[in-house]
């Protein structure tokens, strides 16, 4: 018996407690991640980064090598950017700490126009990436509707008159008086491009428990002035943002207890790039909650 106990104790020490997590998954290949947009009446803006392998420990310093700050980014309204009459601009690079990646490329020479097509070229590391997008025709908010939750709180909806032939979808941002910035309504409206005619959409933003205005939840306060930004995007951009809206991880924690391969985002950037170059038709409206 003594021998058995000795053996067991020995095995206990030999095997130890916690296993090492050997995280080696083959298949990582570096991609140039592109997030670029051009809106009607505004200059184009492009963010570039590299995808970060998960096996690598990251900190504020090491993340720098995944930010692409020395690329040549060209936007043109002609497939041949050097053609006579083409509006072409090499974007200016600048640090931008408001979001990640904290470095952007922006235009200063020409602004986006409704119905126009724009070409993006990114030259970096010996690669040349290409993408194309169109700014759709602007959609206006046809009407507003509020539903009372109690004496002071309202659910706000917008009514859009949808022309199904245009195959557009809609992203909505709202800014309450209390907010310092626009909050995205985390739904892509008409994501299946199947709706037609006048449709009502609830635009209450996602309640954020960390937000000072959380007590209002996803509702709007009676008498509050709400700024509403409506972005109309075309069907190619819709395909991308549809998946992004559903499956992105906004908090970084939580969703990965779920299994299953998430749908790959439908990038419109040529390889080895990945991401989206999209045109967006913007309308801004204000509304006082009745």
């Amino acid at each position, binding site marked *: 018996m003594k021998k058995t106990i000795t053996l067991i104790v020995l095995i206990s020490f030999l095997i130890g407690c916690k296993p090492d997590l050997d995280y080696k998954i083959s298949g990582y290949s570096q991609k140039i991640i592109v997030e670029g947009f051009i809106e009607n009446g505004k200059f184009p803006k492009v963010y570039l980064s590299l995808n970060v392998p998960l096996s690598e420990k990251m900190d504020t310093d090491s993340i720098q090598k995944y930010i692409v700050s020395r690329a040549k980014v060209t936007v043109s309204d002609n497939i041949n950017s050097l053609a006579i009459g083409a509006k072409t601009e090499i974007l200016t690079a600048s640090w931008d700490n408001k979001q990640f990646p904290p470095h952007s490329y922006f235009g200063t020479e020409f602004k986006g126009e409704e119905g126009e097509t724009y070409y993006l070229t990114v030259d970096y590391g010996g690669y040349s990436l290409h993408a194309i997008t169109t700014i759709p025709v602007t959609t206006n908010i046809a009407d507003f509707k509020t539903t009372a939750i109690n004496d002071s709180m309202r659910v706000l909806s917008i009514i859009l008159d949808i022309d199904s032939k245009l195959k557009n979808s809609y992203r909505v941002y709202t800014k309450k008086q209390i907010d310092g910035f626009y909050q995205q309504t985390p739904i892509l409206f008409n994501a299946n491009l199947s709706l037609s005619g006048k449709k009502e959409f609830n635009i209450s933003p996602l309640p954020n428990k960390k937000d000072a205005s959380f007590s209002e939840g996803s509702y709007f306060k009676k008498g509050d002035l709400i700024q509403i930004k409506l972005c109309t995007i075309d069907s190619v951009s819709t395909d991308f943002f549809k998946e992004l809206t559903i499956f992105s*991880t906004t908090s970084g924690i*939580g969703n990965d207890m779920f299994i299953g391969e998430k749908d790959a*985002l439908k990038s419109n950037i040529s390889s080895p790039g990945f991401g989206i170059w999209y045109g967006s038709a913007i309308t801004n409206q204000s509304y006082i909650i009745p």
Partner: protein
Amino acid sequence: MLIVATQKISSQEKQIIVSDSLNYQSITQKEFSIQEVEVKGKLKDANLKSGSAGLEIDVKQLKLLPRFMGENDLYKALQYMGGVSQAGEASSELNVRGGNNDQNLILLNGALIQNPTHVLGLFSVFNPDLIGQMRFIKSGMPAEYGGRLSSIVDINTVNTIPEKTVVKGSIGLISSRIAIQIPISSKLSIYSSLRGSYISSIILPTLTLFGIDKKLTQNKYEFRDINTGFIFNLSSRTKLTGDFYTGQDILRIKTLTNSNLNENSSSWGNTAATLKINHLFNDVWSLSHQLNYSKFKIQSLIDWQNSGINLQSQFENINYKADFFHLAENQQIKFGAEMSFSTAVPQTLSGDSILPFENKNERNIINSAQITGYMRDEWTYENWLFNVGLRANLYAQLGPFTDFKTEGNDIFPAKSIVKSFPISIEPRLFTRYLINSHSSFKFAATRHYQYQNQVPVFSFGFPSDLQTPASLYVQPQASWHFSGGYFQNLLDNNWEMSVEVYYKTLENQLEYKNGIEATFSNSMFEKDLLVGKGRTYGSEWKLSKTTGKFTGWITYNLAWSYRQFDQLNGGKPFLARNDRRHDISVVGMYKLNDRWNFSTLFVYVTGSRLNFPISWFMIDNKIILEYGKYNGFEMPAYHRLDISANCKLKSWHGIQSELNFSIYNIYNRANPFQVYLSSSAFKTKSFDFYINMSYLLPIVPSISWTFHF
């Protein structure tokens, strides 16, 4: 397998051979027809001679295995029997020969148990004091069983009338149980049992006295179950039995260190009821009617993206079957029919405020009906035994049902047929050849169809699989299973050795690609299911010592389990989540004397596989994860060693009792319960993603006192 029955006539004992096959029905009938017959054990060479009816689990032997928190768990013990892999830490799920957990048919007195787990899989729902017989079939399934692709676990509670009132029970660290059997007369007896836990009411508050974080007491976990029933001998040839089971688990996670499950709660439970009448026409013919009801319901509150989401899922089944049985000297014929109606509610949903998606309150209930007929014949010819059978199923989805479409819904009214499937035919063949008195060879080829499916959406043992019966957009699963084995007994049948190989095809396998969050905004998630195929193959080795003071066994499985879906992994085959390449179980039991016996259990299983991201990037201020090769991540191997000692105490006022001392996971292996991607990106702005593992069960010593009188 040969069964020996002992007929007690006065003071004499006479041994007769009741059956050449382990057919539960035949045993029941024979037991019933001959008064005071008890199944005493199996013949020494049963390993060589057994027919297609699978493995008769030695309930008494398994009760000697090391316990967890004082609880015997005979169902979980199947994980150590060879050919079966456990799904993971603290899981009662069975992956039989590379199959999925929903491919096991689990019956309690003939009624379906949809989810046999308590405490997230730490215990099964079966009260060990009441289990009379337990059968496990993983290959060569005879035609009377069907409806699942991989295995049958057929558990029956005690079905004989005791001579006097019997009380059994156990007092353990986190739960206790008591069971009572009362003979009302020589023809009628009733039984009842209760089992319940006191984890959050007693254990956690007590542990705070020893310094555990008081916050943990805000968590709640309890389970309870009740079994009750009766046995009524209407005449010397007719017997009526009724059994009822209901159980409930309640889990509320308020705060848990290193967990992403905070603010989640769930409750779930099974109910099963059976009414059965057996009639013996004469010595060779018998008939059994059985009416079964079963229900499983789960209700969860999930904290998802700052919104509270109520999810409910339910499965209900009512089933009638009639079995005719003919038992002659060298031949058994069995035929019968079965009719069942099922109602599945894959998920119903409601949210606490505005949900971050377009919530469609359009949900379907899937009603279905199935009629099955079967016939099988088992006979022996010289050294051969054959079991040939055929099973045929007719299945249809019934209305009411709405096929939600963007361009106008298709509405099917009540009592209409939404979709009928062609008759499925399941041929079954099993054969055994006795090479000599020490060795035999067995071969089986069987076809299976499965209409009731469950699709897992969590990567760990949370019982929230989506109920997905065959319906308008879901085809039934099917498989071919080929199996062969060589069996050898050594040293006067004191040692048994076997090697089995198998090959299994899997058709219409279902995979839900998007995780549970996508079901929130989807009226008909079944339209998004991916359909693929699979194949599994492997070998199973077993060496056991069956007699003497020291008994036990060693099993080793070498197995491969592949799936192939056109939409996944570029259409190339990939290793299934339950691909466990190496699986070793070592069980030893030592009877020192009449008072003391000891047991030990060691298991080693290759880690299961997960689908994991390989890189991340950000677009639109959102973190996007890029996934790598499908199921490309292998979790760390699972292994642990348990030991146990049983001490029989002196009888006190007629109460027989014993103390059990068990140590679970003696070398404190941190087996991963869940592996997930974690990040402090939004807390510290460091963009530090890392892979996190949560562990559940460290070394757990326990003591329990069991008694009977």
